[in-house]
């Protein structure tokens, strides 16, 4: 009795789909999800196994092992091969390389299986009641494992660390003469209000009396200095928290000898 081979047909279908989408330039990598994962890590090895081994030669554990091993080998060696090509290691070249392996091997595998008799599944000897009991245990194990992952994930996501605020100063890349870029980013636990003072050689040239940032918020600005850059020795930016105005919370400085656009 001859049967079709849905698995190899699925390999061909998925391979053609992924290759087609990627080569058409459609940015679907993130949408490929599980298909992309199968395309890279499972399909090449499965197809190669079907092409290289006649049905019945390998038992299930051997089949799985060799399929995974061949997939890993295909990708590991494929990177080296693609590096020798003008296209390099990009989505399109990977799609062509791995897809070709999967398609070619699937075709060979299908031809090897043409005319092969259908294998009969093993007759089960367990009673229905016992099968239901085991199924319940399996489902329970999966649910508890999923629960473990959720517990750990939530614990990591909500772990408390000391809060902090970043302050930085940089000469901007494309600004005019004598300008600097200042930024503040809050990684505090609650909204904060800050005061920022900019000094040039200890003289205040600019002050922002109230900068409010929510957790994760960023404030940046480019400041054109009122004096020529060549005559400046040092530029200081001092950040204060409005709930503690007497203490310098963060401090950065830029020396005149540092690279600033002149």
């Amino acid at each position, binding site marked *: 009795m001859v049967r079709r081979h849905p698995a190899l047909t699925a390999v061909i279908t998925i391979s053609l789909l992924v290759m087609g989408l990627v080569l058409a330039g459609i940015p679907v990598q993130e949408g490929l999800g599980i298909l992309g994962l199968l395309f890279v890590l499972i399909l090449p090895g499965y197809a190669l196994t079907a092409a290289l081994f006649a049905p019945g030669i390998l038992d299930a554990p051997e089949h799985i092992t060799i399929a995974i*091993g061949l997939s890993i080998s295909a990708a590991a060696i494929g990177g080296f091969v693609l590096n020798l090509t003008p296209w390099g290691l990009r989505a399109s070249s990977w799609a062509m390389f791995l897809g070709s392996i999967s398609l070619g091997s699937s075709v060979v595998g299908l031809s090897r299986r043409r005319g092969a008799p259908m294998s009969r599944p093993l007759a089960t000897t367990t009673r229905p009641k016992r099968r239901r009991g085991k199924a319940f245990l399996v489902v329970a194990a999966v649910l508890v494992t999923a629960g473990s992952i959720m517990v750990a994930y939530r614990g990591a996501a909500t772990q408390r660390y000391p809060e902090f605020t970043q302050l930085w100063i940089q000469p901007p890349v494309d600004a005019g003469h004598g300008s600097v870029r200042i930024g503040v980013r809050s990684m505090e636990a609650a909204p904060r209000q800050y005061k920022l003072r900019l000094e040039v050689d200890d003289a205040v040239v600019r002050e922002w009396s109230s900068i409010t940032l929510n957790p994760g918020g960023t404030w940046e600005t480019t400041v054109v200095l009122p004096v020529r850059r060549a005559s400046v020795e040092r530029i200081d930016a001092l950040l204060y928290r409005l709930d503690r105005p007497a203490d310098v919370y963060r401090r950065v400085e830029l020396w005149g000898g540092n690279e600033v656009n002149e």
Partner: protein
Amino acid sequence: MTVQAAEKRTLVDAARNASSYAAEAEGPGWGHLPALGLIGACGLLLVACAYTAGRADLPVGTLLRWIGLLLLFVPTAFRLLSPAAARRERIGLLVVLAMNFYLVKVLYSPLEFRFSDEFQHWRSTDDIMQTGRLFQFQHFLPTSLVYPALQNVMVALISLTGLDIFSAGIVVMGLVRLLFVLALYLFYEQALDSAYVAGIASLLYMANPHYQFLNAMFTYQAFALPILAYVLFIIARKQRTHDVGSVGLHLALLLSLVTVVISHHLTSYLLLAFLVLWTLATFWRQRKRNGLYEPHRPEIGGTTILLFVLIVTWLVYVATVTVGYLVEPVSAVASELISLTTREANPGAVFRPPQGPSWERYTSYAAVGVLLIGLALGTLQIARKHQRNALVLALGLGSFGYLGGVALRFTSGGAELAGRSFPFTFLPLAFVLAVGLAELSRLPRRPWIAQLVLVLPCIGIYLGGLTSGWPPYWARLPGPYLVEASERSIEPQGVEAAKWARSALGRNNRMATNFTNFHLMGSYGAQDPVFGTSALFFAPRIGSEQVAEIRQKELDYFVVDKRLSSMLPVRGFYFEGWEAMAQRYTEPIAPGMLAKFDGVPNVSRVFDSGDIVIYDVRTLSHGP
């Protein structure tokens, strides 16, 4: 399969099975796998709760962790030591156990990498994603660039799924974990045609000190080891296949040999060493036996030669940097070992016992004792009953490599090498131990007490692995920040500083910093951190000598973490393992040493996040 080949195979197998162990259960059932799977899942849940408790700094976390880890291992060990389990069930139990152990590592840090080695490979992968090319130079871990197999798989997966590096790494290492457990079991099974021995050997391998964490990290060694097991399985399988499927196995072997060579240097060298042993054992044992001719198996010799050629070719034409990377530490350790044997050195002076509570130290020592006894028993059984089996003979000889690992602990630089050798030396050792244990199972009567006696050594080895393995006792649970405490030092302020450096400073600036920020800046920061700068940090001020060193090293930035002065370094050093006071600190680094960059002319303080400050020293280094 031809009739003649089938008959020949049957006769050979019958001869080989003459000494098979406890009557192997057959049948399609899954036995107790569902129930044991549920128990294992409960153990995993306890471990997850332990991690959550650790993050909240609750002491109950330690107890929960121990109970959870025991629940994962002990019930499965009981079942695998029972002759009643069918082959299918054994494989299922081992797969479930292996994946649960993998989740023990993943759940430790489910949001980001935390182990220093993982950052190095994160960077390698990121560089390839940026450029689309291999072999882009990087100071971080030069050898990882010339063994790009892991990165190739990662880049393929990321390119076609859009996953980030961390998520893709979890998937890839999970898949090779599955490959490892299956390949290892099947390899062991091929050796003695015994699912019983293979199950015990696989279980004991998973009890090695580094299986749960080091073997599961996102590193090229952890990636290559399953490929090694896969190669061994293919070779062993080929030796039992006469005609059918041999072309497929030949191609699978060729591809896997190439993969292991381009995956990791030491793994391929140690594989070669084992194949040499196997080849020698094969040609030595090739003789007429029981009226049957042992099938002539020259392929093992050909495979060994092929692997040698591949290794040399890769080393000469691509990976020459490996020589310098390996020669220095290996020769240093070798000269120390020679000094020990000639009594020029005192082993007690350099031996560092495992850290932690005293009961853990005694457990570690006891586990070594159990391993040595098991090694002796297993070796005896091999000599008595299996000396005509070339593969078993090779495994028996290879198991003595474990003694080399023990000896390395008595050198100053060998403790880490010893630790990194266990994943390899346990491969043959676990099999030899299983042979010894399986022999004990041939008792005529096997009450549950007898089975308990068999399980106790397994539990002892497992506990010894937990107490002497990674992570060290102070990092077994995630928790609040500690100074230079490996994974306990990875926290948001350092990570965000590194990300700022990448976006604001550009890539590949040469940076001087402490060990933790070295890895963060080198990975998330895409910078070029430089080793050997500890003297600059310990100098009381920036004088002409320090300026000269900054220029000589072409440093661009200093990343100063003021928390270093708040406590002693948990790992014993702040910057490099060879810094002047490493392992001998009695007080933290002085705050003044870290603040000396403030007010230095032409040293700009460009970033301040409270604890982390970044200084721009390009004017000092390169001139105005």
